């Protein structure tokens, strides 16, 4: 990918990620945040978080299914934007909705499953955001870092549960997010199972403890040589 294309893509992703915030600011400016702005803004920020989480979780499945790689560098950016929006979401709840009434919020976290699970989703994202820098990857080591960042699956599941539990039963949209997440996770599970099976087939006579270093093991998708066009 040429440098210019890469920069253009990056600018595009940044712009797209800032659109929801811009929409809310414009709505605030033009007094178009409905009659109940706090509730509206909370909901918009929450849904934007979920959308960004799902988009960031869709990049690897795209690689698995189509062998694309150009999108992979955007996982960090998209993930961090998801975290940015969840921070705004939570701040609106703390500041505008409950106005620092810690007692009331504490009671809600304990008593209301949708808030409990929402808080859980947020706390799962915290270590991921904290270790998102290249320096942290080096410090943790790629393997451990990767393991840690699998928490994002649980965060996404908790996020969907949060939405399902807070919405009225007849609403469809929480289930749309959940269905998309299920597909995305299923693609990964299928890929992992496939790799595991291949590794077993190729590693019948393990000469070393590390099966992945077995010469029969197929190369990982991302390491696949790029076919010439």
């Amino acid at each position: 990918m040429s440098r210019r294309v890469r920069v253009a893509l990056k600018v595009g992703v940044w712009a797209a990620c800032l659109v929801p915030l811009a929409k809310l600011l414009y709505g605030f400016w033009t007094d178009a945040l409905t009659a109940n702005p706090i509730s509206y803004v909370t909901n918009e920020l929450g849904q934007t978080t979920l959308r960004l989480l799902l988009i960031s979780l869709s990049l690897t499945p795209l690689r698995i299914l189509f062998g694309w790689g150009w999108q992979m560098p955007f996982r960090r950016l998209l993930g961090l934007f998801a975290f940015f929006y969840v921070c705004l979401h939570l701040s609106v709840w703390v500041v505008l909705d409950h106005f620092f009434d810690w007692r009331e919020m504490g009671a809600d976290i304990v008593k209301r499953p949708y808030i409990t699970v929402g808080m859980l989703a947020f706390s799962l994202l915290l270590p991921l955001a904290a270790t998102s820098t290249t320096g942290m990857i080096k410090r943790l080591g790629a393997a451990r870092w990767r393991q840690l960042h699998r928490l994002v699956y649980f965060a996404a599941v908790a996020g969907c549960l949060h939405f399902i539990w807070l919405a009225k039963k007849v609403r469809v949209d929480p289930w749309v997010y959940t269905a998309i997440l299920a597909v995305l996770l299923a693609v990964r599970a299928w890929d992992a199972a496939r790799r595991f099976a291949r590794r077993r087939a190729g590693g019948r006579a393990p000469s070393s403890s590390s099966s992945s270093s077995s010469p029969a093991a197929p190369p990982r998708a991302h390491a696949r040589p790029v076919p010439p066009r």
Partner: protein
Amino acid sequence: MMRLKDSDVTPEPVYLNRRAFMVGAAALLVAGGESAAAAPPEPAPLKATPNPKFRGEEPPTKYESATTYNNFYEFGTDKGDPSRLGHTLRPRPWSVVVDGLVAKPQRLDIDEVLKAAPLEERVYALRCVEAWSMIIPWIGYPLSVLLKRAEPTSKAKYVEFTTLKDPEQFPAQKPGLFGLGGGLDWPYTEGLRLDEAMHPLTLLTVGMYGKVLPNPNGAPVRVVIPWKYGFKSAKSIVRIRLTEEEPKTAWNKAAPQEYGFYSNVNPTVDHPRWSQATERRIGEFRRRKTLMFNGYAEQVASLYTGMDLKKLY
């Protein structure tokens, strides 16, 4: 499996695919709730005498808020849907049937409904089960006027309200994909005990803010029961039926453990998923405490003496 250096993984991409993906991602981000901005057509003025007993201590909610922030699932689940799509409802011609356990079943044209009693204006608080509230100057008269006209028999114990079912006028009543409409079991029905329905606070409502009832608010005729959560106050009513058995109600059918038959505003009985102790008054910043029976305890508490309101929520 995960590498962050973007120089690593760069298969020769198809430009269109990238662009399509980014456009798709952007569209996904842009999509989602739009604000209700379009002003609905102005309903005709409706004269009414203010009832001094219900002048209201607090200023009414902005008319624009009261007509653009509504739960009226016949138009969709978004609060902006009723004002955005409300024009599809035709409030005239319209008639209301009063039947069931009555000596004189009625079929009233909307004009007869409007003339059945002198119209009065009453400022009531409206508390939604979602913990927000408004102050609304309604126009109407006590429902008891209409019920008495039909002469309920001694067997009648309950009143059932039925909202119009017509997918042409209520778009969300159309069956959805694979039956996943995301809607309620149409038509919308609600109910009251007969003594609740006969209570002087229960208002048969045909207008608000000095105007004919706007479509998003349940045109042309609805009930308003100010001490109960908003969903009890059925909109766009076509039938009022008196029954011996407790009527099935739409929300109770959808989620029985969450929405009971009584659904009185009660700060001490939480919704299973959220607290009902506080509410946000539309137009205000801080939450305020929710009052027992939405502030009408003096008038209605006696209806429920001896009842366990935690069980009969």
